[in-house]
C-alpha cells in the first residue's frame, strides 16, 4: 500500500469538487474492495476521499411507484429493507447471494457497482494486464481463466464483472443517478458497465469526476415470478461462476414479459433483450427455456479452463427460468439439502 492523503467530505458538491481537482484520487465508501486493491498495490490513489458521511443513506419512494436507493445504503440494509423484500425480492435475493454477512454490512450500494474484476492477473502487479497497464497484454487469455468471460470479451481482456447485485439491477432495468461538475444525469443500468473492447482499463461509463448518488428502481418489481440462482465453488464468500437473475410477468399460463440477466460470464451483467423477447406470449416450458439459453449463448466462447461455463450457463438459465415460473425462487439462506 502507498502513502496517501485523506479527506472526508460533507456534501455531494464537495465530493465532486474534490474528485475533479485532486491528483489521482478515489472515493472510499465501505472500503471492502478499494482497500484490498490498495493492499495489492493495484489501486494507488494519492488521495482518498471519504464519502461515508454524505446524506445518501436513505431508501425512498420515487413518486412513480419505484424506489430510490441512496448510494451509501449498505448491501445489508438494502437486502433487508421491507419494501425491497416485498416489491423487489429478486434484488434482495441477489444481494444476499453475494460476499458474506460481514462484507455486506460494510459494503455500499454505490461501491458494489464499481467493484473491480477478480481476475487473478489483474490482482498481481508483477504480471502484465491490459486493464491495469493499458497495452501491456492479457495473460488470462492463454492462462488460467476458469473465472473468466464467455460472452462479450475482447482480444484485450476477458475479465468478468463480479457483482451479484448488479445482475438483479440489470434485470430490473434500474437507473443509476450520478452527479458531476456539469450537474446530474441518469444512466440506464444497461449502459452503466462497458464491454472491454480496446479499452479494458475503463470498466464503466461513469466519468472520472462523477459520483453515484442513487439507484432508481422502476415500479415493476416481478415480485411473484423470480429467482436468483448462483453457482459457485462454495456456498458463501465466493463469486459466481455463473449466476442468473430471472424474472417473469405472467398472464395466466403465458409469459407476458421476461427478464434475464447473467453474472460471472461477461465484463458487465449480461442481459440479452432479444432472447428475452423469445418468451413473450409463450408458455413456460423446458423447451422454450432451452431456446432462450441457446440464443443467449449463441456467440459464447471459452478460453480453456472456462469452457465448462458455456454448458453450465445453459443449464443455469433453464433451471432459473423454471424456478421463476414455478414460483420456487432459490433460497439464499436455507442452504441445507435434505
Amino acid at each position, binding site marked *: 500500500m502507498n502513502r496517501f492523503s485523506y479527506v472526508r467530505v460533507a456534501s455531494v458538491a464537495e465530493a465532486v469538487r474534490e474528485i475533479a481537482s485532486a491528483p489521482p484520487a478515489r472515493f472510499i465508501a465501505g472500503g471492502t474492495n478499494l482497500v484490498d486493491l490498495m493492499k495489492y498495490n493495484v489501486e494507488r490513489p494519492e488521495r482518498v476521499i471519504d464519502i461515508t458521511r454524505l446524506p445518501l443513506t436513505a431508501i425512498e419512494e420515487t413518486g412513480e411507484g419505484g424506489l430510490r436507493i441512496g448510494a451509501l445504503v449498505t448491501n445489508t440494509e438494502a437486502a433487508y429493507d421491507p419494501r425491497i423484500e416485498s416489491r423487489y425480492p429478486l434484488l434482495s435475493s441477489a444481494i444476499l447471494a453475494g460476499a458474506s454477512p460481514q462484507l455486506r454490512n460494510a459494503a455500499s450500494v454505490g461501491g458494489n457497482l464499481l467493484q473491480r474484476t477478480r481476475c487473478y492477473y489483474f490482482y498481481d502487479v508483477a504480471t502484465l494486464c491490459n486493464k491495469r497497464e493499458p497495452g501491456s497484454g492479457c495473460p488470462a487469455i492463454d492462462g488460467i481463466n476458469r473465472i473468466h468471460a464467455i460472452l462479450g470479451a475482447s482480444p484485450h481482456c476477458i475479465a468478468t464483472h463480479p457483482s451479484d447485485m448488479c445482475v438483479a439491477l440489470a434485470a430490473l432495468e434500474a437507473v443509476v443517478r450520478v452527479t458531476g461538475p456539469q450537474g446530474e444525469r441518469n444512466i440506464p443500468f444497461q449502459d452503466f458497465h462497458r464491454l472491454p473492447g480496446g479499452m479494458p482499463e475503463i470498466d464503466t461509463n461513469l466519468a472520472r469526476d462523477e459520483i453515484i448518488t442513487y439507484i432508481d428502481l422502476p415500479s415493476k418489481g416481478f415480485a411473484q415470478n423470480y429467482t436468483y440462482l448462483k453457482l459457485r465453488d462454495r456456498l458463501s464468500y465466493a463469486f459466481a461462476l455463473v449466476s442468473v437473475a430471472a424474472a417473469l410477468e405472467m398472464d395466466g399460463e403465458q409469459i407476458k414479459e421476461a427478464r434475464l440477466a447473467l453474472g460471472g460470464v461477461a465484463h458487465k451483467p449480461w442481459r440479452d433483450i432479444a432472447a428475452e423477447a423469445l418468451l413473450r406470449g409463450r408458455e413456460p416450458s423446458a423447451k422454450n427455456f432451452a431456446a432462450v439459453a441457446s440464443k443467449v449463448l449463441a456467440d459464447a466462447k471459452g478460453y480453456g479452463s472456462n469452457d465448462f461455463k458455456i454448458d453450465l450457463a445453459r443449464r443455469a438459465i433453464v433451471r432459473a427460468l423454471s424456478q421463476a415460473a414455478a414460483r420456487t425462487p432459490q433460497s439464499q439462506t436455507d442452504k441445507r*439439502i435434505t
Partner: protein
Amino acid sequence: MSTAAPQPKANQGQPEPRIDARLKVTGGARYAADIPLSNLAYGVLVTSDIARGQVRSIDFEAAKATPGVLDIVSYGDMTGIEKPQFGSAYTSLGPLHDRTIWHDGQIMALVVADTFEAAQDAARKVKAEYEEQHPSGHFGSAGTETIPAKGHAQRPKENPSAGDFDGAFQSAPVKLEAEYRTPTQTHNPIELFSTTAYWTGKQLTICEPTQSLYGLRGEIARQFRMDPADVRVIAPYVGGGFGSKGPSTPRTAIVALAARRLNRPVRCVVSREQAYTTMPYRAPTRQRIRIGATPDGKITAFSHEGWELTSRIDNYAVAGTETTTRLYGYGSVASDVQLVKADRQTPAYMRSPPEVPYVFAVESALDELAYKLGMDPVELRRVNDTDREPIHGKPFTSRHLMACYDQAAQAFNWSARNPKPGSMRHGDWLIGMGCATAVYPTHIAPATARVRLRADGDVLVQSASQELGTGIRTVAGQMAAEQLGVSFDKVKVEMGDTELPPAPVSGGSNSTASVCSAVLKACQQIQERLFRAAVASNNGPLAGRNPADLAIRNGALVAKDGAAQKLPDVFALLGAGAVEEYAEFIPDGGPHDAVQKLYQGKLTMTGGPEGKKAKYAYGAEFVEVRINSRTREIRIPRLVGAFAAGRIMNTRTARSQLMGGLIWGMSAALFEATEIDERTARTINRDLQDYFVPVNADVQQVEVILLTEVDHEVNPAGVKGIGELGNVGTNAAVANAVFHATGKRLRQLPIRLEHFVA
C-alpha cells in the same frame, strides 16, 4: 455430555473443556506476534516476481528515501550466518546468500521501518532487474528432472516390497491399473507466519509460531554459530500449523539479523500472499496403482508407484508407499517413488503428509476393484483385512479396522445403498455413497516434563510442547490430574517456551503419546516420593505398608483397605511445601542419547512400521454426496467416521480433531488447489478468496465415533495419535461417492462441478 462432549466409553478420558477455551474465545490468548514489546520496528519482505534466474541488480533508493525506513537487509548482508539446513529447515535455500532465484516469490530483502505502513510502502518501491530463465513448474514441464527418491531423499529408506509382484500380477484373474493425481495444496493456518526477534547482549529471543520450539532454537543457533542456550524461542499459542510451522524457514535469521543491526526488536508478519511462496506446501503427486485379485476379491498382487514434485535444491519426499503397502494383506507387493525436480520452493509436511495423497489412490483403486468384482466395497476390505503387515510379516500392536467399518456403516445406514451408479436420487439431486479407510502410523518421540505438586493439591505441569489448538495443554493436564488424584481445575499447564524442559516437534501426531508419557513418568516419580514418605513414617496411618499398594485419590494417599493420609500430612512428613519432579521419557528402542538430541532440537521420532510390532491407528469413513442433476453443483450432506486409536485422553478434543480432519478431507476432495501458471511457474491464487476452503454452510452433518481400543504395547500412555488420522481417506470416500452418484470416476483432485458439464 453433548455432541461436542461425547460420553466416554471404556478407556476414554473425560471431555474436559480446553484449558484455554475461555482465553481463546475472549481474545485473551496471546500469539507470538501479539506479544507487546517497546520500541518495536516492523519488517516487510520483498519477494521476487520471477521463478527462475538471477537478480542482476536491486534498487533500494526510493525505498530508503521513504520516511520511517530504518534498514534494509538484502544480498551481501548474511556474512557470518550459515544457510539453513534442510531437515530442520524446510529448505536449504539461503535466499539472501546469493542472487539466484530458485522459485516464485523468493525473499530478496527485508525492509524495516518505524511503522508497518512505512515498511509496506517502502517494500513496494524496491525494484529488481532480473536475468530471467524459463522456469519449469509442473510435472509435465520440459526441463524438470526425475530421480529416484530412494537414495536421494530421507524416505523411503527402502521401497517396500514382498513376494513376486510381477508373476502374481500377470497370473491374476482380475486386474486393475489406474493413475491418480493430487494437486499442490497450501496450509493456510489462520494465524499468519511471523517472526519477532530481539537481542539482549549476546542473547537472542525469537517469538514465532512454531511446531518445534527446540528445533527452531537449535537451527537458529547453528545459523548464527551461537550456543543454543543463548537462544530463547517463545510461542505461547500457535494458531494452526498443519506442518507448515514444523520446520524452520529462512525468514527467521533475516529478521534476527535486522534486530541485531538496529539493536531493536523487529517484527515481521508475512502477508497471506507471501506465505504462498515463502513457506512450504503439499507437493502435487502422480501415482500409478496396479492390483491383481482373485474373483472373490482376495488381492494377490499390489503395486504402488508415486511421483512427487520437489524443488531443485532439496529432495523432499513423503513416500506414502511406506503406509499403503502395509494397509492390507496383499499377497505380493511392489512399490517405487520418484522425485520430479522443478522450479518451485521446497514442499514440506502438511497434515498426514504421506497418507493423504497416497491413500487417496489406494482407496479409490479398491473402490474401482469392488465395482469390477461386483462386490461390496466394505466386504472387499474385509476379505483383505490382515493381522500382520505384509512387508515383514510383523503383527500389529492392535488393529480394529473392520470394527470401525462395522460401526460407521451402521451409523451411516450403508445397507440402504443401492450399489448401481446413478441409481439413487432425491428430487433433483443424485445421491452417492462412498467409503474409504483412514490409517495413520503411531509415532512417538522422546519428551521431558516437569511436574510440581503442592501440599494444597495445586499442580503445575511444564513442558515445551506447542499448543496448536489441538488440546495438548488440556490432555497433559488431564494426565497429571488423574495421576496425582486432584481435580482438573487444580492443574496449570505451561508450554510454548524453550525456558521449559524440551518436548518434540508437534508433528506426526506424536505429541499426546510422547508428552503424556513424560508427564506420566514425572507424576509416577512424585507418587513414589510421597508413597515412600508415607510408609516410612513412624506412626502415620500408612506406616509400614508396601508403596506398591498405595494410590493417590482426592487429595490423599489411600491404601486398598481404605486407610488414608491427607496430602498436607504427607508433605509435612517430607518437610516440604511442594514436590517437583523432572522426567525424561525415551520410547522403547529409542537411542540412548535421545534426550540429548531433543535438547539440541534434533528429532528422533519412531513408530509405524518400525520395531517388533507395527503401530497404526485406523478408521473407516463414509460420505454421502449429492450432485444436482441440472446444474451439477456438488454437496456433502453427511460425513461419518469411526476410529480406533488406543486410549482416547479426552473425548471432546479427540472428536474435534477427527471432525476437523473429516472436514479437511472433504475440502481436499472438492475445494483445494494451489494453481501454478505453467508459463511462469508463479502462484495464481494467493489468498483465502481464491484458494477455496469450505465455509460453514458447505458442511452439514459430521459424525465421529470413537471406538474403545486398549493397546498396552503401543506406548506407556496407550495412546495413538489422532491429529492426522481424520483427513486420511476422506478424499477417496468422496471420489467413490461421486462415482456412485454419477458413474463417473474422477482420479484427479479437486473434483468440481466442471467435471460434470459438457
